[in-house]
Each structure stands twice: as structure tokens, then as C-alpha cells.
């Protein structure tokens, strides 16, 4: 109790002549923590969004290859609550041209079940689909691709692609179809190269052999993709099941590397804060050296003295962290409002809006990240408080105040 009482008074007592040092350290810790957490939440948001687009648009959350028909697969997997949507699909290469034009481009043809373009699935929520009002979308072309070959909605295109033949393994097919909708997702590369055909007739062309199914999980189960893959493998042992991470392993590795580098930079920032914390903590100990000498002369043990400064450091750090966490919570929760406010100022200066400031961030911060950073800051602060006290404790009590 004595230790806590003295520690608290040394940190914050109003009569404490070095009170301002404690307050400056508290402010420093609060701002440092705010900067770390806000930056981490924004970087998480950017990464999450990037990953979400990849898994929702380019690939599915899980891809399953099996000999079973759609109804059989659905029957087998109905027990897995995490599965929200499942579509049979085929991805194949094609040559696309405007009807009557000699200009053609290569494109990826995604042939899929019709409900893909009508369900509210992750693809739909992450992209915009423009359809003629009277029709249901069956052929959707990426907007940049439609610009590239000069096709507008309801115009005919010729598609040449390869499908299993009746007498040969594979044979080229040519179909003329009408583009009834255009889409735009957040993945430009996908939009520039893809035509989606949600027509069962096209799917029938691929009835022979193994079928590929794209699976979307519910939002809350997105992090359990690994365990869902294992569940599917257990239920359908002959099947081939791959998660979106496995399907995009190169890209996923790049993103992981990016995340590692992001953490490295954050820790470098943290290191700069730690250096400031160190000098502040040492200063806190040095301004109290007179009191330390008095306490030692009254019979306080060296051990107690070092504990005292660690407790003092703990009080200051905890207060700084509490303020920092509250500020971070407010800033992260209102990040878009803050950006919009900044955009207003930008508009007042340049008479135009900023694309960067209007970007809709969905800031995200894991509980583990908050705890990790808070504990890290606290441990560092306490360690440096201890180091500061230890350097003084090597001296005899009167040596400490000899120059006072």
C-alpha cells in the first residue's frame, strides 16, 4: 500500500513540483498510442478491402472440384452453416469480338449459374451491375472490356471458346450472344478481362467430367475458411478443395509480406516513441533523486526504491494509455467524418474534392492488436523506469544528492 501511495503521489500529486514532467509523459504516451492504433486501423482497412475484393470478385472464398452434380453437392454440404452461396462455374479463355467487326480481344469467360447475377452475394455487394430494366442479367461484361471492343448493352458479341466435344476431348465453339449488362468492380484487372455468362445452356456444355463450384461463406465465418475447407474435404474426400488463400497464393504472400513490412514500420515508430519514453522515464527518476535519497536515509531498501519508480511509471503509463485508447476509439470510429472534414478544408483551398479524402474507409482493429500494442508500450515504459531507477540505486544515498 505504501508503495502504491508513494508511487501515485510521485506521479500526480498537485504539490509535486515535477508534476509537469508526468503530464508531458502522459500526453506523449497518449499521442503515441493514438498514432499507432489509428495507423494500424487504416492499414488494416486498406488490406482488408483489398483481400475482400480478391476473394469476392476474382476467386470465391472456396473452390471445390468434384464429379458430383449441383444438387448432390448441396445435399452433402447442407450441414455446413458457414456456407452461404454455392455456384457451379467454369472459367475458360475466349476470344471476344463485336458482331460484324474484325476487332477482337482475349477475355476470361466465366460461365456460371444464373442465380449468381441475381443473388445478393459478395460479388454483387462489391461491384456495380447495370442491367436494362426489362431484362434479367445473363451476360455481363466488364465495363473497361466493353469500352475496349466498343460494345454497348443489348449489342451482340461473338465469343469463341473451348468446350468438351462430343467426339473429341475439346472443341472450339462459337456463340453469338447479346450483352445485357455491364459491371464494374473494384478490381480493374478483372473488369478489363472478364465476361460473365449466367446461362445454364452454356454450363451444360461442360457437363462431362469434374465440375467446379464456387463457395461464398457468411461474413462472420470468413475467418474460418481453413476449417470449412477441412470439413468439406472430410465430407467429400474425393474432391479437391482450395481456399482463396491457396488459389491466390502469390498475391496472398505479397499481402502478408506487405503486412509484415507494415508491422516493421509500426514497430520503428514504436521504437521512436520508446526512445522518448526512455528519456522521459529517466528524467522522471532523476527529478526524484532527492526524494529517493531521503527515503533511503529513512530505511527504504534498494529493491523498494526501484519498485517505487516502476509503480510511478506504471501509473503514468496506464493513464497515458487510457487516454490514448479513448482518443483512438473516438478517432477510429469517426475516421470518415474526420476525412470528410479534411476534404471540406481541401475544397475551400483548391475548389475541388480530394479523391483520397473521400475514400470510404472501413477502419478495422483487432482486440489482439490493441492489447499487444498497449502491453508493449506499458512494458517498455516500465522497463525504462526501472533502468532509470537502477542507475541511481548503484550510488550511496548521500552520493545521489551531493550536488543538490
Amino acid at each position, binding site marked *: 500500500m505504501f508503495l502504491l501511495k508513494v508511487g501515485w503521489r510521485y506521479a500526480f500529486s498537485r504539490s*509535486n*513540483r515535477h508534476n509537469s514532467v508526468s503530464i508531458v509523459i502522459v500526453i506523449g504516451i497518449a499521442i503515441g498510442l493514438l498514432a499507432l492504433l489509428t495507423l494500424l486501423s487504416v492499414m488494416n482497412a486498406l488490406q482488408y478491402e483489398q483481400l475482400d475484393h480478391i476473394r469476392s470478385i476474382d476467386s470465391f472464398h472456396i473452390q471445390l472440384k468434384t464429379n458430383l452434380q449441383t444438387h448432390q453437392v448441396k445435399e452433402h454440404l447442407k450441414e455446413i452453416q458457414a456456407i452461404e452461396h454455392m455456384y457451379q462455374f467454369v472459367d475458360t479463355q475466349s476470344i471476344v469480338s463485336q458482331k460484324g467487326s474484325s476487332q477482337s480481344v482475349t477475355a476470361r469467360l466465366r460461365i456460371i449459374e444464373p442465380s449468381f447475377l441475381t443473388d445478393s452475394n459478395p460479388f454483387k455487394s462489391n461491384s456495380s451491375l447495370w442491367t436494362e430494366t426489362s431484362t434479367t442479367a445473363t451476360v455481363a461484361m466488364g465495363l473497361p472490356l466493353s469500352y475496349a471492343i466498343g460494345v454497348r448493352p443489348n449489342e451482340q458479341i461473338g465469343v469463341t471458346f473451348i468446350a468438351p466435344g462430343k467426339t473429341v476431348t475439346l472443341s472450339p465453339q462459337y456463340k453469338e450472344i447479346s450483352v445485357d449488362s455491364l459491371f464494374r468492380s473494384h478490381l480493374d484487372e478483372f473488369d478489363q478481362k472478364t465476361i460473365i455468362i449466367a446461362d445454364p445452356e452454356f454450363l451444360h456444355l461442360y457437363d462431362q467430367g469434374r465440375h467446379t463450384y464456387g463457395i461464398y461463406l457468411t461474413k462472420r465465418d470468413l475467418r474460418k475458411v481453413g476449417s470449412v475447407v477441412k470439413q468439406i474435404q472430410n465430407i467429400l474426400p474425393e474432391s479437391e478443395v482450395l481456399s482463396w488463400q491457396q488459389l491466390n497464393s502469390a498475391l496472398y504472400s505479397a499481402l502478408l509480406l506487405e503486412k509484415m513490412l507494415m508491422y516493421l514500420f509500426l514497430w520503428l515508430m514504436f521504437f521512436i516513441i520508446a526512445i522518448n519514453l526512455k528519456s522521459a522515464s529517466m528524467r522522471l527518476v532523476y527529478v526524484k533523486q532527492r526524494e529517493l535519497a531521503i*527515503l533511503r536515509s529513512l*530505511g527504504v*531498501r534498494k*529493491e523498494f526504491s526501484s519498485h517505487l519508480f516502476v509503480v510511478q511509471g506504471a501509473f503514468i503509463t496506464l493513464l497515458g494509455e487510457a487516454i490514448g485508447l479513448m482518443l483512438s476509439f473516438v478517432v477510429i470510429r469517426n475516421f470518415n467524418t474526420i476525412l470528410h472534414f479534411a476534404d471540406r478544408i481541401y475544397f475551400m483551398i483548391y475548389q475541388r474534392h480530394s479523391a483520397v479524402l473521400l475514400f470510404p474507409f472501413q477502419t478495422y482493429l483487432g482486440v489482439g492488436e490493441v492489447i499487444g500494442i498497449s502491453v508493449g508500450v506499458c512494458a517498455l515504459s516500465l522497463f525504462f523506469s526501472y533502468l532509470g531507477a537502477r542507475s541511481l540505486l548503484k550510488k550511496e544515498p548521500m552520493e545521489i544528492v551531493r550536488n543538490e
Partner: protein
Amino acid sequence: MSNLLLQLSHISKRFASANQTIDVLEDLNLSIYEGTSVAITGKSGSGKSTLLHIAGALDAPSGGEVYFKGILLDYYDDQLLSEYRNRHIGFIFQSHFLLDDFSALENVFIPSLIAKEKRSIMVKRAKELLDKVGLSSRLHHKPFQLSGGEKQRVAICRALMNNPSLIIADEPTGSLDEQTAQEIEQLLIQLVREEHKTLLLVTHEKQLATLCDTSYLLSNGRVTPIDE
């Protein structure tokens, strides 16, 4: 003859800086008996305070031995030395050395708090001591709210709090005006006698030195008795 309480044997203390070495104490011998009061006088810089700090285990000698009740302090580890300072020694410094963040009452009972004594007992004793020095109305004042004389009275109470065998006072009236200094001197001697303590005192004041049983002059690193 009363028992030997503190014995300083062949004490030397050397302060070394980058370009010079100063021998403050050289082969100093001093014996202090229980229940007596000893005054050390000497010029400024003669090493009086250094001698007190060594006697109270606040500083280590460069050579020689310090015995307390016949036990060599070199044998004490940090825990025993802390206990020695807490239970057997009461320090009164020239510049009071009170803790700024604590009230007068708290400053007085801190030595008992360190000794982990029962709160009610220590508060009662601290109040009694403060009452004796006329500060019963200033119990909850912080040091910055007290005058120099009041602060020194609080420091005297703190030194007596744990009922130590030896009171070490380093020019306790050095920073006070003449009238207050006289009051504090009287009070210190009176309290030491009332509580049957041994006093080791460093002072510039001849008058205060004459109130003690024995006086020594510290010069050239050694002490010599002063004949009355």
C-alpha cells in the same frame, strides 16, 4: 560508564575527480557512548557532514570500519543496512529533507510506515511528537505550507519517530534565522534528553556545542576533543 554505541575506527574518505583527489577524512577515530551527546565542529569543507553520513551508513568510507553496538557495518547487506537506518538511526539534515508530496503528519510517520508498524499506533505517536514541538495545528500541511523552523521541527519529529538509539543531526539550525535556530536547538536537546537518546551533532554554533556532553573539532581529517 555507559555502553559503546558507535565506533568509527581508522576512517578515511577520499573524493576523486578527473584532475584531483581530496582526502577529507584520514585515520579518524571516534567512539560514541549510549545516552551521551557529542558535538562535532570545524570549518566549512572539513568533512563534518561526510563523517555523519559515514556514521549513519548513508555513505561508504574509503577505508576503516564502522561498528554499531560492536557489529561491523561492512557485514550488513542492503536489507540490514536499511533496517539499521530505519530502526537505529534518526537523521536530521540541514535542509530538513522532507518529502514534498506528504503532509507533516505523514512525513513524521513514514519511518514507521517503512518499518510496517500498525497505522493507528504510528499516527498516535506522530501526533504526540508533533504536539511536543508545537505543530499539532499543522498536521495536514504540506512542507511548502510550513516555515523553515516548522519544517525543521517536523524533521526532528521524524528522526525520533522510530525511537532510534542514535540521533544524527547535520547542522540542524544552519539554514534558520538566529531566533528560530535557538528555539530549535533548545527543542532538540530537550527532546533528546527526554527520550534518552544518543546525539551526534555537527554544528557551527558554539552555543549549541556547549549544550552537548562532549565536543570535538574536526580538522585535517581527524577529530580532537575540545576542552571546555
